[in-house]
């Protein structure tokens, strides 16, 4: 038998395939599998790594902080979404009632023209960016999420608020057919619709995004589909989900958690290890999936980017 020994200088297959493509082989496999609805074995492979199909085009984040991502499964199975339930584990199973088709967002207040925009039209107008951010809940747990979104500053420039607008106010959809707790007359978990707000300079900061997806894929319902706010240096409750209304206003909006308990939750809600929650310490945090805790960073690790916004403010007072 003739046997040709491979020389050291000879390229192997891996070297010839562009690395980019080589790394995409699984995505390719998935696409094939999805269109062909082929043999069960391939579908099993898909189910195994539990990653969604990438269905968004975006500019990749280089992850310069070398953050370790939480899994898609973790991110989509532990959600505070009181419109469904106060149980973080159950949201995933209840969120199917949220219908995001033909989603409209009302834009009103101190803008040139009050409009209602269609979500699908809206995201076509903007570049999508991947943003790998730490996400720190006021309750003391945290995760790292690869969000996909549009820069809120891009959006604000597009709708062009007038100079009287000092704050931006967000509202979650109110629809008690989709959100069971909104139909709860006697003991709703919080006041609905959920309201959040940002000062205009916070909103214009480069870190602030309107997220429409994660892990390269459209936003799962339990994470606040189709569009939600992400402000990575603030506690998670600022990052309002399923936004249906955006208003530009002169006065500081009264956000839902401040309204519910102003001694414990304020308007700013900046992540701050030096200011405890009245009931628990904020010095350290529990990373999802781990038994061990890690230090919480000032402004959740985004001090360089945002500390200037709060110069001269007493952060023990403006919680």
């Amino acid at each position: 038998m003739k046997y040709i020994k491979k020389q050291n200088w000879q390229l192997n297959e891996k070297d010839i395939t562009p690395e980019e493509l080589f790394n995409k082989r699984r995505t390719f496999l998935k696409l094939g599998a999805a269109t062909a609805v082929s043999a069960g074995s391939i579908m099993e492979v898909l189910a195994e790594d539990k990653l969604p199909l990438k269905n968004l085009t975006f500019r990749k984040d280089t992850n310069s902080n070398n953050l370790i991502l939480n899994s898609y499964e973790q991110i989509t199975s532990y959600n505070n979404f009181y419109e469904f339930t106060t149980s973080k584990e159950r949201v995933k199973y209840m969120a199917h009632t949220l219908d995001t088709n033909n989603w409209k967002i009302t834009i009103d207040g101190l803008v040139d023209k009050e409009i209602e925009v269609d979500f699908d039209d809206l995201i076509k107008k903007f570049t999508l960016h991947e943003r790998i951010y730490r996400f720190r809940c006021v309750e003391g747990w945290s995760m790292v999420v690869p969000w996909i979104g549009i820069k809120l500053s891009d959006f604000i420039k597009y709708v062009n608020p007038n100079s009287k607008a000092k704050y931006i106010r967000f509202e979650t959809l109110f629809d008690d057919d989709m959100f069971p707790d909104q139909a709860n007359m006697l003991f709703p978990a919080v006041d609905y619709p959920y309201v959040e707000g940002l000062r205009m300079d916070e909103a214009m900061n480069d870190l602030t995004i309107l997220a429409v997806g994660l892990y390269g894929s459209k936003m799962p319902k339990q994470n606040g589909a189709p569009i939600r706010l992400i402000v990575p240096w603030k506690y998670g409750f600022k990052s309002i989900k399923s936004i249906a209304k955006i208003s530009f206003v002169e006065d500081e909006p009264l956000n839902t958690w401040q309204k519910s308990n102003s001694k414990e939750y304020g308007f700013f809600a900046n992540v701050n290890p030096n200011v405890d929650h009245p009931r628990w310490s904020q010095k350290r945090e529990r990373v999802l999936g781990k038994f061990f805790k890690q230090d919480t960073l000032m402004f959740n690790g985004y001090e360089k980017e945002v500390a200037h916004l709060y110069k001269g403010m007493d952060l023990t007072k403006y919680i």
Partner: protein
Amino acid sequence: MKRFLIFIVLLLPFLFGLYELFILANVKDPIKYIYTLSGVTSTVILFISIYISLIRKWVNLIKYRRLIGLYGFFYALIHFLNFVILDAELNFDFVFKETIDKPFIYLGVIPFIILIFMTITSTKKLFKKFKNYHKLIYLALILITIHFIMAQKSLTILQFIYIVMIIATGYWKLLQQIINKNKV
């Protein structure tokens, strides 16, 4: 036989927790999970233990009250160790300061100290001597209830049902005491 059955049933939440944490290994927030599982189980068991004297006319479980009470302590101990070992990471200075500083924490620590006292004095010999002090369980349960309510970010119907049940139980207990006194 009955004792063995009670022993097994009350151990189930513990085994269930181990199963979820280490075999399924799908718990997203383990420290929080241990808090909730041990806290709720301990509270429920301690409430059962005070119901025993209320229902003795119909079902007499007085013989097993110590076993049930000790289980209440067992789950409270897990809850406390979770605080000290996993949550505070054996930083005793932190544990001490938090306990002094935060009502939410000391409202959990005080009933735990009561439970330690009751556990130590639950032997036949000591129980005779300290029987009267075991009424402290009512104080412990009131504090545990406040601690439990404070642990919630917002109150839902479940917590209100819980509060109503506690008031009803207290009322029932009081009524029984008055009736018993009048008999004498």
